């Protein structure tokens, strides 16, 4: 070691390593927009399917969920391709992405099957969505050690459980409440955190 190398310089090197490693890490906060997007999509589809939206265009209620979900899926795909352009992949990012992709595909197939089989029921619908979103949020929260997302997972699971015991209207309210808190509020919270992190600025070498 060079005698002139001070402990201050060494500490700076250690901090540089930590900050650069953090830069390479995938941040779930960056995905806040997708939580808000899907939250809004659930609310629009619910409003359309339940006849809360007027006008001739909105009269085809049976198209509400398939059309809104496909539109949200396409918007998410476009957003992801733009966001990930030039971004390096990480093992953790791949693992979390795999959970959400698998959940999305499974949810789409199961709900479409329920709709076309005519066995659609609000209780089943809320229980399946709540259960699957609960699992995805919980797995992601455990991997990231993120308590706020774990709380979202618990709210989704609670809505799924509640839907098994209450009336259809109450199950619908549980779904809307979970959508509001776990998609829109949580998504906005994640976006604010990401915005603050960007304002603080990255440490440049």
């Amino acid at each position: 070691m060079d005698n002139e190398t001070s402990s201050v310089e060494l500490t700076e090197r250690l901090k540089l390593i930590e900050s650069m490693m953090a830069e390479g890490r995938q941040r779930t906060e960056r995905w806040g927009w997708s939580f808000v997007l899907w939250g809004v999509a659930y609310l629009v589809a619910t409003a359309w399917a339940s006849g809360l939206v007027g006008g001739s265009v909105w009269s085809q209620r049976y198209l509400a969920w398939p059309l809104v979900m496909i539109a949200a899926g396409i918007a998410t795909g476009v957003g992801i391709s733009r966001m990930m352009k030039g971004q390096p992949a990480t093992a953790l990012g791949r693992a979390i992405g795999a959970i959400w992709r698998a959940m999305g595909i499974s949810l789409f197939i199961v709900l479409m099957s329920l709709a076309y089989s005519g066995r659609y029921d609000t209780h089943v619908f809320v229980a399946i969505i709540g259960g699957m979103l609960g699992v995805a949020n919980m797995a992601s929260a455990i991997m990231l050690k993120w308590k706020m997302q774990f709380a979202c997972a618990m709210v989704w699971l609670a809505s799924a459980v509640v839907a098994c015991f209450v009336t259809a209207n109450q199950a619908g309210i549980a779904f809307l409440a979970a959508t509001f808190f776990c998609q829109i509020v949580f998504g906005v919270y994640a976006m604010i955190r990401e915005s603050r992190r960007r304002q603080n600025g990255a440490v440049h070498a």
Partner: protein
Amino acid sequence: MPELLELNPVIHGKLRLALLSLLSGVDEAEFTWLRAKTGATDGNLGAQLTKLEEAGYVSVEKKFVMRKPQTLYRMTEAGRAALAEYVAALKQLLGAAI
């Protein structure tokens, strides 16, 4: 008294240390991403990456994506081991200085 570990001079350079730290957290990274994260100029970044490549700490892959050239950098096992040794040495030196 235990002998103090030497700091690897290849890694000790500030920009090279930043580059290895960045690459340690990702599978592979584009030149443009590394430039954005470090704020370094093209010339300086290229020179430091070449030094790391010559030391066997990073590997380079050049390819074309949609007819555009793309240069990808990956950390090698030797690079990972060297960074781990550097951090251990750094901690030991800091421990001794306190």
